[in-house]
């Protein structure tokens, strides 16, 4: 188990990550979602033992391996159990074959074994035709696939991926995720990937976590907005402008915050209903996605893009179709601020 405990991390005095606990259990498939600058890449670098947290520590199987009161540095043995592929990975000078074998060569593996592993991993990722090419002869998507294959060649216990399919087309992304799934069938492997594509996150991960402003969101990752809470307000009910709409919120807080509405807290209808909900917004369905059996994610433009969850039966009964009318309603007390 790889975990961050009591981690606060700063760059130039600015807090970029603040997590009480973030664990990657053995064999887990975790997706982290969040907007740019939410701290996803920093979190991955800390998990990869590439940076020392300003406060707190990184543990492997319960043992502190980096940071903590002793400001310990990770050993090479600890680092070799976790591998990170960055969002825009770099390939070393040399051929793709040399790159794929790098991690094995630095472990002192014999050349014949290195070649066997490299051929094997290249075949699984569909990059065998690229083996003798140099980095400047590859597209961005190919570089990304080579980098993931290079990371898997050393068979880490935990693989950390930062936007692994950001430069890949749909087919290349399918190949990539297919190869990762095959790897997980072959041996125990925990994967923690950062993505800004919620659909991909839900499709490929067992556990989707949202990060905003360096903190873990208490609700699921959809419908997160950065807002400024006014000081003045009648009682604790405030109206916060988000895009072109105003969302009613119960809070006594003021200043910058993240506003979140859980998709399961949104009532979906075709026409406005008489209810106690303070937030009622009419709009058009922009996307319907079946991400789990029996569950449909309804994305609608109601002035901002909001996501709600309904059952397949409810979606059928409401005759929801892309471009069709829809009304989203939720209570002011269902809006979370953190």
């Amino acid at each position, binding site marked *: 188990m790889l975990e961050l405990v009591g981690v606060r991390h700063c760059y130039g005095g600015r807090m970029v990550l603040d997590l009480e606990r973030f664990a990657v259990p053995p064999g887990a498939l975790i997706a982290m979602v969040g907007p740019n600058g939410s701290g996803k890449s920093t979190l991955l670098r800390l998990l990869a033992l*590439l940076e020392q947290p300003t406060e707190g520590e990184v543990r492997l199987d319960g043992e502190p391996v980096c940071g903590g009161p002793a400001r310990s540095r990770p050993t090479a043995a600890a680092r070799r159990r976790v*591998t990170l592929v*960055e969002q*825009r990975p*770099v390939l*070393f*000078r040399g051929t793709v074959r040399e790159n794929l074998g*790098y991690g094995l060569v*630095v472990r002192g593996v014999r050349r014949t074994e290195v070649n066997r592993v490299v051929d094997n991993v290249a075949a699984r990722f569909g990059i065998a035709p690229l083996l003798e090419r140099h980095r400047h002869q590859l597209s961005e998507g190919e570089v990304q696939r080579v980098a993931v294959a290079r990371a898997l060649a050393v068979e880490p216990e935990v693989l950390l991926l930062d936007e692994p399919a950001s430069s890949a087309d749909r087919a290349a992304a399918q190949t990539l995720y297919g190869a990762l799934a095959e790897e997980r069938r072959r041996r125990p492997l925990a994967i923690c990937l950062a993505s800004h594509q919620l659909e991909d996150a839900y499709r490929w991960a067992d556990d989707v976590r949202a990060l905003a402003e360096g903190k873990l969101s208490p609700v699921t990752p959809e419908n997160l907005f950065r807002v400024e809470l006014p000081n003045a307000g009648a009682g604790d009910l405030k109206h916060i402008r988000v895009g072109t709409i105003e969302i009613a919120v119960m809070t006594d807080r003021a200043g910058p915050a993240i506003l979140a509405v859980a998709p399961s807290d949104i009532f979906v209808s075709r026409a406005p209903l008489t209810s106690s909900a303070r937030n009622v917004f009419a709009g058009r369905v922009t996307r319907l996605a079946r991400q789990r059996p029996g569950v449909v994610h309804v994305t609608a433009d109601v002035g901002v893009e909001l996501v709600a969850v309904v059952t397949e039966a409810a979606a059928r009964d409401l005759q929801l179709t892309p471009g069709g009318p829809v009304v989203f309603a939720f209570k002011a007390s269902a809006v979370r601020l953190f």
Partner: protein
Amino acid sequence: MDFLGEGLRRALALLLAGDAEVTGVVVLTLKVAVTATVIACAIGLPLGFFLATRPFWGRRAAFTLVNTALAFPTVVTGLLLFGLLSRRGPLGGLGWLYTWQAIAVGDVCIALPIAAALSAAAVQGVDPRVRRTAQTLGASAWRTAWAVAREARFALAAVITAAFGHVIAEIGSAMIVGGNIRGSTRTLTTAIALYTGQGEFGLALALGVILLVLALLVNIALQVLQGKAHA
């Protein structure tokens, strides 16, 4: 102009004749310069890498110190070294004063800040993802340094060239600790200074031409090596 023309003619004649004294001076100059460059780079390049990549208390002060040392006058280096190597000095027991070793030590002191400061700048110019990638793939500290050095190879080659260029053209320290002894510690630069003072302008100019040719050959050799590395 006649004076200059006469000097160039004499230079050409000396070069074509293969004068024994000139050959001796050239060989000694190369021996000192190569030795000093190798030692300075062997210490300076890892030092530059350390400065560029390892955060430690006083790092900024260390950078300032190294950069200031770049502008240290070579005659002052020679003077300090003279104090250390003279019979009464703390290193007098070595008996190196007025030997080629003393000139080499002076040249190492001059080339070391160049190697350290410029290699630190070269390493800082490498994409930080290279280092992180090597580390996350399980490379040791040395392997990581090697991966970074491979990416900075052109800049590091330029560092070696700059160090060699400074050392081969240096005169202040070589004159003080070498003594410009004929057949023993006379280098190209000290010989040029001496012959110019004696009015032997042709000989001085011949040695100047040789110095320039040597510098040119070393640069060409490094460029060829870079070209092969790039292929």
